[in-house]
């Protein structure tokens, strides 16, 4: 009769050791076979934000996969929330591993990570030769002034026109074409239950919009060289005073907690008389509330005392130095640029071209949009190069401008004065000090 074997400490250790050895050696034994299989299939991985026009993501995924099939490359495209882009980039750069092609949104990236990105000067210049000169915005996005190189391929920018309810503004006999009119007319419409809706919270939209207002008053937080903070000026104080008045007279306290989607919801629900936002708000209204959508009209940003200008959000691709397939990433971007008109159409005119002739005017969907009433409602967007700039204007974008953007200093400067937490002068001083300390740090003056 067999007696059940006793599990001794020694036996347990031996058996466990053998099992662990077997499991541990499996990858080493199988690696030669796996690497050969991997070598036969080339791969390209892309990560980018989840576009506010979902149809664009669908188009891009199919476009990338089709290109991969033609070139025997397995393409994977990951979409992440826009708020996670910066943290994901930091994680990939720190780990020295991640996607081959990284798509940035907003500030940061091209300049902050330039030591981790391959030089794409040849690519940008070849596309420039083919599709015309790169715009000022395009140059701000990815160009390094010090060594005249490109650390990122500027894909497109998102403009921020005025979107207003025509019937409401016609009702008071005004047009929101200047900032003063936005305040005066907005105050009248607020009395009727239709306030102006511009966020004073912490997100991309207010970061972009309030920069535009600052510039339109002749103020900025840095000079053209990008070496000096020039925020503490009478122009800035005037701009901040204006925002405080606009908030009190024409807006509600709701705007202090808004996310990027809130103003879209505000106008689409029929409450707001005016927002400043990319056309995704209008496109959403077309699907949710056709009556309101037909009443939403689009115009250039309001004129300020000095200029008519508005912030724009930069979108660009970088190729990591540690990317496994840099060649495929470069080839894909070339092919993508050659098919950019399709990308423009897929985004419903949301993505704005960076190269002068890449989408010849009249631009499809903007000049004559069959879904809009009237058909040329969006045609003013064709001129957005004239009235758009990206963070850093009038100087270059560099890590300090990105940090000022990420810390919401311009938004908080406006909000502190608007809520009465500080006077306009105090708020400007506070913001200028914050900018100074960031500049000192990045210029190694601290």
């Amino acid at each position, binding site marked *: 009769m067999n007696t059940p074997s006793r599990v001794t*400490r*020694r036996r347990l*250790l031996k058996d466990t050791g053998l099992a662990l050895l077997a499991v541990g050696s499996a990858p080493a034994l199988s690696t030669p076979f796996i690497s050969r299989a991997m070598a036969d299939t080339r791969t390209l991985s892309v990560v980018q934000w989840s576009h506010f026009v979902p149809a664009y993501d669908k188009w891009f995924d199919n476009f990338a996969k089709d290109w991969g099939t033609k070139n025997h490359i397995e393409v994977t495209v990951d979409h992440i929330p826009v*708020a996670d882009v*910066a*943290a994901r980039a*930091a*994680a990939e*750069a*720190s780990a020295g591993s991640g996607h081959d092609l990284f798509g940035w949104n907003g500030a*940061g990236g091209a*300049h*902050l*990570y*330039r*030591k*981790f990105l391959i030089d794409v000067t040849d690519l940008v210049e070849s596309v420039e030769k083919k599709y015309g000169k790169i715009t000022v915005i395009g140059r701000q996005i990815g160009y390094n002034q010090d060594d005249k190189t490109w650390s990122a391929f500027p894909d497109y920018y998102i403009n921020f026109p005025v979107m207003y309810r025509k019937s409401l503004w016609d009702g008071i006999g005004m047009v929101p074409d200047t900032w003063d009119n936005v305040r005066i007319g907005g105050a009248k419409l607020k009395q009727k239950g239709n306030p102006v809706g511009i966020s*004073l*919270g*912490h*997100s991309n939209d207010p970061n972009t919009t309030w920069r535009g207002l600052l510039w339109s008053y002749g103020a900025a937080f840095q000079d053209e060289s990008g070496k000096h903070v020039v925020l503490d000026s009478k122009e800035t104080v005037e701009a901040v005073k204006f925002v405080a008045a606009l908030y009190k007279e024409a807006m509600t*306290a*709701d*705007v*202090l*907690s*808004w*996310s990027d989607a*809130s103003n879209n*919801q*505000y106008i689409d*629900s029929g*409450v707001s008389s005016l927002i400043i936002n990319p056309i995704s708000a209008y496109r959403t209204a077309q699907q949710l509330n056709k009556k309101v959508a037909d009443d939403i009209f689009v115009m250039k940003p309001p004129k300020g005392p000095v200029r008519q200008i508005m912030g724009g959000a930069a979108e660009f691709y970088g190729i990591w130095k540690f990317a496994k397939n840099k060649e495929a990433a470069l080839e894909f971007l070339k092919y993508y640029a050659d098919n950019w008109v399709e990308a423009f159409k897929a985004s419903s005119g949301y993505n704005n071209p960076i190269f002068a002739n890449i989408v010849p005017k009249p631009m499809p969907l903007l000049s004559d949009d069959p879904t809009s009433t009237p058909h040329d409602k969006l045609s003013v967007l064709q001129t957005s190069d004239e009235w758009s700039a990206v963070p850093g204007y009038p100087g270059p974008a560099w*890590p300090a401008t*990105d*940090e000022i953007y*990420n*810390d*919401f200093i311009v938004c*908080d400067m406006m*909000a*502190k004065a608007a*809520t009465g*937490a500080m006077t306009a002068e105090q708020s400007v001083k*506070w913001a200028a000090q*914050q900018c100074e*300390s960031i500049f000192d*740090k*990045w210029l*190694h003056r*601290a």
Partner: protein
Amino acid sequence: MVSIAEPIAKPASRYRFILDRRDVLGSIMVAPAILYVLLLVGLPFLLAVYYSVSAYTIYDPSWRFVGLSNFRQIVNNPVFQETLANTFLFTFGSQLLGLVLGKFGALLLMRPFPGRKIVRALIILPWAVPIALATVAWEWMFDSLYSVINWTLISLGIITRSEAPNWLGNPHLAMLCVIVVNAWRFFPFAVVIFLAGITSIPQDVIDAATVDGAGFWRRNYQIILPMIMPIVAVGLIFGIVFTFTDLSVVFLLTNGGPVGATSVLGFEGFQVGIVSGDVSHGAAISLFMLPVLFFVVIGMLRFIRRREI
């Protein structure tokens, strides 16, 4: 006749000296855990210390030693001072609220009522639900345009639309909101701690107190609470450490706003160190939590030891 061979004695294993010595074997067995802590906690900690005294940034990953200047700069920054104050308010506010709710939750769950088992299981939900998902729901409840709380209050005629609170837009209310959400997250843990503590008290002690004429409040605050204080303190240490270093609720609900009113150290360290790429200042902000937590934990552990004696 068949002769049976004598079994050959196996040669002694060369590792026998290890396998037969309990002390050596014990060390070997515990080594992976120690290695795990050293690699995943110790090494990043040392790296953070090194980053905090250097000029290391993502843009310029050089290890130039700058001494304590990063700490000097952050301490002199009014935004950091406000953030530090917010962190204390957020941590101790949410812990206090969580403990009060936990205590009453535990007392209610001690009483028999129909469906008690289901309620006990459901009470764990705030802990089990992913924080991103839960915060989206809270965000909707506090939404400036579509707040379900405001909608209910307006529908009941308690307030008008113009009086409706702007939960996440008002600096004080926004802080209250992040405290409430964090207390809601901590609440199940507090309930479990209190339940464990209360059930460990011998029933005859409570019975004796009742016979002596102690009412509900006296029994709770003069007998039960002092007796379970050590276990509550351990739970509190856990809660304070995790809340003090947490950024998820603030990041998801308010993004530090409005006007920086809800920015806490974890969020600020993440914004500066990761999002803005200024790793050295981010590390300095994060490390600032260490001495604070150290003194809090030491103080509480001393308190527990004294209580046990």
